[in-house]
């Protein structure tokens, strides 16, 4: 019985080859749109994360701080909400870093014999606190701790940068959501249009006494098959495009700076399953409409 249903569904697809091809192409293209955007967005998000990790506060210590005080302070800072890490940077390390940063002009630091820099903690924020407001609040809290001289965090720059990143991310989610909803509609609509051409057939089947279940099953199977085909073709297309782009840029990109990945296997599988579900939903909506009367 099961295999008969499956056979009926496949036969049906073959009998309506043209329309089914058109439908599979539409589904594949929709999957391609959504998944290519998802691919872009996950990779871009990683990039943004890397950049955002650069947001930090420097906590300059009082020159009189003892080693014991320093450990206390580190403990106290790390206890604060929103802090992910507090790394000690000795004044020696700070000067060395600065020299590296200054490049050619570093020669002018050579002459400084008594190192004028203070010891410091570099405080990094936990991912969910990388906002202007959080860093401000945190700085205030740290400033109140003993042995802290000053807290520096590039107020303006961070504000703008996090705002841009947040906006990019918001726009990304918004566009992703939009694309998803749009293609869901498109696929469901396409399946509806497809079934529209079968309306007469459905009406006749009902008139000769078949149950709705008997009518629906092959269509559902077809919807799921079409969804699966569309999903697989779409994801294959994406993989091919991804492969092409990453080949093209392979030479120029150092692995650490921007390491692009394809969508993980579970997401890929999820998209294909999703596409099958949409095929099913498209059938469901059409059939509901036709079988209402």
């Amino acid at each position: 019985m099961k295999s008969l249903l499956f056979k009926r569904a496949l036969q049906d697809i073959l009998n309506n080859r043209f329309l089914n091809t058109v439908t599979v192409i539409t589904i594949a293209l929709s999957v391609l749109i959504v998944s290519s955007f998802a691919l872009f967005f996950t990779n871009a998000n990683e990039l943004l994360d890397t950049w955002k990790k650069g947001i930090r506060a420097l906590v300059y210590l009082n020159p009189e701080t003892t080693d014991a005080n320093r450990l206390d302070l580190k403990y106290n800072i790390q206890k604060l909400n929103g802090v992910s890490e507090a790394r000690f940077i000795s004044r020696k390390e700070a000067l060395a870093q600065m020299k590296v940063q200054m490049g050619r002009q570093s020669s002018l630091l050579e002459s400084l014999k008594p190192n004028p820099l203070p010891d410091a903690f570099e405080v990094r924020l936990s991912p969910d606190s990388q906002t202007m407001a959080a860093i401000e609040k945190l700085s205030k809290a740290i400033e109140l701790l003993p042995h802290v001289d000053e807290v520096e965090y590039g107020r303006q720059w961070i504000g703008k940068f996090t705002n841009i990143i947040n906006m990019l991310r918001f726009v990304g989610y918004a566009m992703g959501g939009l694309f998803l909803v749009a293609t869901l509609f498109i696929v469901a609509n396409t399946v509806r249009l497809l079934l529209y051409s079968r309306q007469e057939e459905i009406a006749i089947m009902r008139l000769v006494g078949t149950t709705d279940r008997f009518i629906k099953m092959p269509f559902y199977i077809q919807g799921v098959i079409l969804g699966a085909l569309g999903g697989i073709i779409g994801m294959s297309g994406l993989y091919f495009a991804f492969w092409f782009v990453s080949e093209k840029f392979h030479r120029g990109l150092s692995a650490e700076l921007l390491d692009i990945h394809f969508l993980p296997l579970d997401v890929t599988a999820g998209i294909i399953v999703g596409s099958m579900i949409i095929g099913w939903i498209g059938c469901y909506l059409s059939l509901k409409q036709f079988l209402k009367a």
Partner: protein
Amino acid sequence: MKCHDDALIRLFHVYKRYGAKNALFDISLDIFKNEFLFLTGPSGAGKSTLLKLLYLGESLSEGQILIDRMNLARVSRKRAPELRRKLGIIFQDYKLIPTKTVYENVSLVLEARGMSHKFIQKKVHSVLRTVGMEKRKKSFPPGLSGGEQQKVAVARAVVGEPKIILADEPTGSLDADSAGTIFDLLTNIHARGATVLVATHDAELIRSAKGRVIQLKEGKVVAE
């Protein structure tokens, strides 16, 4: 004598309106088990409409219809398949599925009832042979002549051995010989206990057969 309780199909004061138009007007009728009934009347009299009401192809506007103790005015649409399986319907416009072969069109009825593959095959072939369409079993309806389509429609109606046959103009597209074959088939089924209701304006057909004749005109019963 037949009493009311023997009636397989009962219509009480049935009305069917399309907008302002009365397609059927106050029809009351009892059809008994194993009757052979003709429904006749000019074009537009309401013959097809009456049949449509019986198979729930349309819902009635007023009145009651009982078929085999099922009250069609009250029954939920979900039970339509149950009703329709008791019926074999020959539609005036055949209603064959154009994308399925002759064989598939006929076997569909049995498949939907969950019959075994083997039984279906045997039964469908035998019915197609009876109507003279066995050789065309792999054709699609658009590749058949009008009469051939009608034969397939008849085959589909009788293949499930229904208790009731509703035949709307079952020989309209057929030459005298073919019509005779089809009519013999209906008579045969009647002899095996089925109730047969034939809508037709073929006066000759009615004359040659014996059976009750109901004459409709403009939605009313004008003669019985």
